[in-house]
């Protein structure tokens, strides 16, 4: 038993470990607060159980700790991982206690996951861990911190954009959809260095649940491609994987993904995965670059898309998308009903992503 070689401790500060407030129940109280021997509040976690009795991890906690656990801003692991930490065994002989240096001495199956929040709805959508030598508290370069935030954020944005574009004719997803990938950083941890992201509280729960489920399915397909060489992959999903994979050079050697988006799994990407993803990206056919003219009709300002008509030589109308930077230019050309000359990349779906656009002057049009 993992407790056998640890020093026993006094029971005086611990009281009787009777539940004061039950925080989590599963076949009896598993996580609860109790009142210690000095009247102080304690957090108790049942880390083992058999027919003879139960063993608890016990740490001091403040009244704010319970609020933080309820909000999901503190994980159960963090709440327990205090300088004062005991293991307490209760069986038919009574109580015995051991002093623990940290939760690291407790086997993984007897302590909560590092990112497990008390309530399921607070669990991170994605936890992204960068693994490299020498990453420890006080020794994490700011560039690594930035990478830990920007790469998973970019991956989720790309993932949500793929799902958004699947259900639309093109252009920018609408505001409700964009809110789904404007994530909040839920917590940071030195493990080597990781960040957990969750959806903003204001998002629409029903839309969010269905889209994140679809996102999880799409990401599952992308990961299957990495693990099974004979799988095919949607080109846009390669860009999602590219955002999550570790850089080929530098301190970071691996990236680990956990959270609701990957379900019960823990996915590790290494530099070989990065090389394979980038080789696949290079092998994708480059989009066709075209120039054309026409008049902007049926402008959708929210989705940043329009239909181009009156093209030269009776060419068919063309669905186009544009970026925020071109918003004013497109709007003025639409409002003035003038001919425009534009350049862009034609996707395999026949939608032109406009990269440059200018009004055609009367003399030029003649």
């Amino acid at each position, binding site marked *: 038993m993992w407790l056998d070689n640890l020093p026993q401790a006094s029971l005086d500060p611990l009281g009787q470990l009777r539940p004061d407030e039950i925080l*989590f129940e599963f*076949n*009896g109280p598993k996580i609860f607060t109790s009142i210690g021997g000095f009247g102080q509040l304690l957090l108790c976690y049942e880390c083992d*159980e058999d*027919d003879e009795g139960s063993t608890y991890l016990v740490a001091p906690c403040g009244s704010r700790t319970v609020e933080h656990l309820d909000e999901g801003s503190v994980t159960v692991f963090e709440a327990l991982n205090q300088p004062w930490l005991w293991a307490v065994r209760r069986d038919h002989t009574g109580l015995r206690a051991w002093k623990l240096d940290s939760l690291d001495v407790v086997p993984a199956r007897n302590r*909560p996951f590092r990112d497990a929040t008390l309530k*399921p709805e607070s669990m991170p959508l994605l936890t992204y861990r960068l693994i490299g030598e020498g990453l420890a508290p006080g020794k994490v370069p700011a560039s690594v911190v930035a990478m830990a935030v920007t790469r998973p954020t970019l991956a989720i944005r790309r993932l949500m954009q793929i799902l958004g574009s699947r259900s639309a004719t093109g252009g920018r997803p609408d505001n409700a959809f964009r809110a789904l990938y404007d994530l909040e950083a839920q917590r940071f941890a030195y493990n080597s260095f990781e960040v957990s992201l969750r959806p903003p509280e204001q998002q629409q729960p029903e839309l969010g649940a269905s889209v994140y489920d679809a996102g999880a399915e799409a990401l599952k397909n992308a990961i299957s491609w990495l693990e099974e060489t004979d799988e095919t992959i949607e080109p846009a999903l390669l860009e999602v994987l590219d955002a999550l994979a570790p850089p080929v050079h530098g301190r970071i050697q691996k990236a680990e993904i956990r959270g609701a988006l990957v379900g*019960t799994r823990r996915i590790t990407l290494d530099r070989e995965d990065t090389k394979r993803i980038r080789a696949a990206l290079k092998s994708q056919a480059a989009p066709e670059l075209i120039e054309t003219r026409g008049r902007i009709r049926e402008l959708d300002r929210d989705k940043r898309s329009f239909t181009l008509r009156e093209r030269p030589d009776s060419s068919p109308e063309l669905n186009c998308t544009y970026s925020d930077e071109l918003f004013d230019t497109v709007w003025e050309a639409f409002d003035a009903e003038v001919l425009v000359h534009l350049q862009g990349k034609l996707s395999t779906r026949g939608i032109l992503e406009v990269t440059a656009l200018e009004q055609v002057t009367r003399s030029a049009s003649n």
Partner: protein
Amino acid sequence: MGSTDDPVGPSNCKSQADRNKALDADGLGACTRHGLSVYLAEKHCQHAITLLPRLGPFIVAADLTPQHGVVMPTPSKRFPHHHTWWPPEGLTRHTLFAKVSEVQICG
């Protein structure tokens, strides 16, 4: 629910009363400790295993019908999804369950 074994063993289907731990319970607890905690959704069971990895790593499910006893919602303020299953005396419980997925236990 969670299971340490696949296939599920009898020890994974013991209530608190089976472990003689229901004697000091009062109120609703005096009733629920004679039943087994179950979830209707896999994701809630998955969350329970991330909190208490020793319940897993296997997520197991059963199609419970009235002949298998009573299942009732036993929600709390924090856990509105919690259900309790009271199997009839003499029912072999563990053979009803089969694995649906596995949680990777990580520190």
